[in-house]
């Protein structure tokens, strides 16, 4: 039962990664990337890696999304 639940979680992880690559549009891709980070946090919790799960949660889902959105906002046509 535990193995099957873990398998479903890994399927979610790989689908989130594939979706982040296949969607068109920069902002959509970044949001799917944060979904990938959150599911990776869950996978780390299943693998009993609590320190790594906390780090992935704050860095992947929080900080990297902020950096990406900041860079995207600086790289589009400035409406002046």
């Amino acid at each position, binding site marked *: 039962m535990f193995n099957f639940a873990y398998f479903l979680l890994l399927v979610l992880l790989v689908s989130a990664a594939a979706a982040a690559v296949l969607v068109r549009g920069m902002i959509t891709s970044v949001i799917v990337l944060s979904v990938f980070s959150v599911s990776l946090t869950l996978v780390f919790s299943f693998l009993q890696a609590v*320190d790594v799960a906390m780090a992935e949660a704050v860095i992947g889902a929080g900080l990297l999304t902020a950096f990406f959105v900041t860079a995207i906002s600086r790289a589009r046509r400035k409406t002046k």
Partner: protein
Amino acid sequence: MSRKGKRRQRWIVLGVLICCALVLGTAILPMSVSAERVSDHYIRYGVSETAALNLVSAVLLDYRSFDTLGEATVIFAAVSAVSVLMSGGGLSRNRRTLSNLARCAVANIYPVLWLFPLYVILHGHLSPGGGFHGGVTMGVLLIMISVLYGTAFSLPKLSLTALSYTEYSSALAFILVGLAGVVHGSGFLSNIGAGFFKGSPGDLVSAGFLPLLNVIIGFKVAAGLVSIYYQLLRSGD
């Protein structure tokens, strides 16, 4: 097929070949036996040698603290690289803020949010967490102020100069803590052997310089990340 299509096809074939190689490589990945011996030592004697309950923090800041110094250097290098790359424009001082609802909602709970990184940093040797987690959370909280109220509000209060000084002094403090071991005669970045207070496992003040290093790393990472955020926002004219 056009020339661009043929070039793209070649890249895809190359990618597929690399994928097959990697899948084969991990299917026959051997597990080294000597590495298990090292981990067995850390698990069995970690608490008695370092008095830290969190074994990952004990490995990261006591047994392998030199690697953590290298990681702090990499963060410093990333901040320097982004500062040099984005140095061509002026710092953005816009008044673009979020809506009134966002500002009121966050302003009421904001001081409570600072309890989390404070707890995680100070209890890094007792429960999962540590300097990096708390440092990144502190950086994110400072970035949140800049996002909510605009950089025209936050830049005078938390200038780039202050952030740089925090980062430099944290890096120097890390190295000075390591040199205390050299002065004592036991080795660079040695913990209990250099005379730092050991205490009993489970106390807040214990495990040598682990709480001190956690605080130093927390400030360094927070200052570095907020600097990167400010640099990425440069207007570029």
